[in-house]
């Protein structure tokens, strides 16, 4: 019989929370991907030894309180404006590591101009883009990335292209801009996917260290609350419906588009 006291002995430690995350209890829904995405970003910051250089720009959306969890200096941006804040700070502090953390409504709807132009200028920033196809915080409204036919609070009969237009693949658009150096699409719904996503985050911050330009990581994630499913069902639905529209994998590496 193994007692708790035995388990928590230092020599038995196999995993610990990175100190780049605070001890605050996260407000995210159980099953949501944000916790895992926060963790891999924070772990990379710790492993690279850049906690004192990292500056987080939080968005408006579910991750509006990201600055309560990332134990780095942080700014909360107005809705969609994170890349503008990041542009200025990175230019004023060229040796720091400024990253934005944004959702699909923030980045691909209200912040489209800021996103496109920051990437087009090749700002030496890291953008973490969490795409779950819905506005989570405000109660599950249609996002620019909502799939055709998908039901949301503002597309209650399903997204109809004649009424709502098409889902936006902004990541593919950004890959066409010469300023972007690294563009990839990842997920965090399985342990293998988490490991791949973490490698991508690491590459992004390394690129930034080497002053290569914009690194952009889309993470396709679930919103089991907004999609009104259990977490396992949401992940299954994501694989079957989101991934065909938003295929996982590198899109642009070292400034060159990956041929498919």
């Amino acid at each position: 019989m193994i007692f708790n006291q035995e388990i928590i002995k230092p020599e038995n430690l196999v995993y610990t929370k990175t100190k780049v995350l605070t001890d605050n209890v996260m407000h995210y829904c159980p099953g949501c991907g944000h916790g895992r995405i926060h963790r891999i970003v924070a772990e990379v910051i710790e492993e690279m030894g850049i906690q004192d250089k990292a500056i987080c720009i939080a968005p408006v959306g579910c991750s509006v309180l990201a600055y309560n969890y990332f134990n780095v200096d942080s700014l909360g941006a107005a809705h969609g404006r994170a890349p503008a804040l990041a542009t200025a700070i990175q230019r004023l502090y060229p040796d720091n590591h400024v990253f934005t953390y944004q959702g699909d409504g923030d980045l691909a709807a209200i912040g489209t101009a800021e996103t496109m132009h920051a990437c087009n200028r090749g700002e030496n920033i890291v953008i973490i883009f969490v795409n779950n196809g819905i506005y989570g915080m405000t109660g599950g409204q249609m996002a620019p990335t909502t799939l055709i036919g998908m039901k949301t609070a503002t597309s209650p009969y399903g997204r109809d292209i004649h009424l709502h237009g098409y889902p936006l693949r902004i990541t593919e658009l950004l890959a066409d801009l010469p300023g972007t150096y690294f563009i990839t699409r990842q997920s965090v719904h399985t342990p293998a996917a988490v490991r791949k996503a973490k490698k991508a985050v690491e590459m992004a911050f390394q690129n930034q260290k080497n002053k290569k330009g914009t690194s952009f990581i889309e993470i396709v994630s679930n919103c089991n609350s907004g999609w009104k499913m259990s977490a396992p069902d949401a992940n299954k639905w994501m694989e079957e419906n989101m991934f065909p529209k938003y295929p996982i994998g590198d899109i642009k590496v070292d400034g060159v588009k990956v041929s498919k």
Partner: protein
Amino acid sequence: MAKELKLMKGNEAIAEAAIRSGCDGYFGYPITPQSEVMEYLMLEKPWERTGMVVLQAESEVSSINMVYGGAGAGKKVMTSSSSPGISLMQEGLTYLAGAELPCLVVNVVRGGPGLGTIQPSQADYFQATKGGGHGDYQLFVLAPASVQEMYDFVFDAWDIAFKYRNPVMILSDGAIGQVMEKLYVGDYVPRWTEEQIHENAPWAAFGKPATRDHNIITSLELDSAKEEIHNQKLQAKYREMERNEVRFEEINCEDAEYIFVAYGSSARIAQKAIQLGREKGIKVGLLRPITLFPFPTKRLGELSKQVKGMLSVEMSAGQMVTDVRLAAENRCKVEHYGRFGGMIPTPHEVLEAMETKIINA
């Protein structure tokens, strides 16, 4: 201090002052009649002179949010624009005020509403002095009346912005922005070193050293009770500005029976109207508010006991006049005279307005 005489446009004076006052970053978007600010900076290449960053943004929405980022990181950052562009910046300004970030925003006002005109106007007084965006907040507002003041107020703006952790607006107009006048420029104020930033802006997000907790710049507070306390703190700060920072100029007020109240270009016109009035034997003076917020309410209240009437002269349909009336508290007659839509009144018509609306009314 070594002084050097130059001939410059008001907009160019803003740009030169930015470089010499230790500004770290300028973020802007072209709009008439203030485009010379960024044109001058790009031509001068201040990144070679002082290390100052200059960037043309994709919109005024973006440039004010670049200012928010830079200010939140403890740097002296600014933008400039004209009325329609300043309207776009209102979102950023309320966030800056809410997060208590120091910065400088220059508005070279043109006629509105809408796309309006590119000629001078003072019709953005309400927007500048009563908040402008959503929520209860105040900008600190300086109103230059000459190219020299365009230059000098940039230096003053940094002191006030960092003393109070508040956005400062220089509220100018198309005439002051475009007119060329002589001005004296002085020595360079060096940009802050990283150590000075850490000392002067310990609250800023510039990268967390191991020795302190992480700094968070935000205007969000989900707990209403805490948000009320935050609002009370902001209001206390604005009251402190009213106690300590009111600035105005008086011309010929000692024996005045009537006074003009006017700022910026209108004050220059009123000054000439005083001369014309005095030649006719009318004892007329001028109170020129230099700070529009905080407003010289107390001094105007005192003057309202001395004079028979006040005429607020503005290139607007009558905005500052409401503050003059509040200050005078019905102790004397207060009227407004204005031209708008980009029209500039002449000294003769301003004096005539004093005679018909106040003296002979």
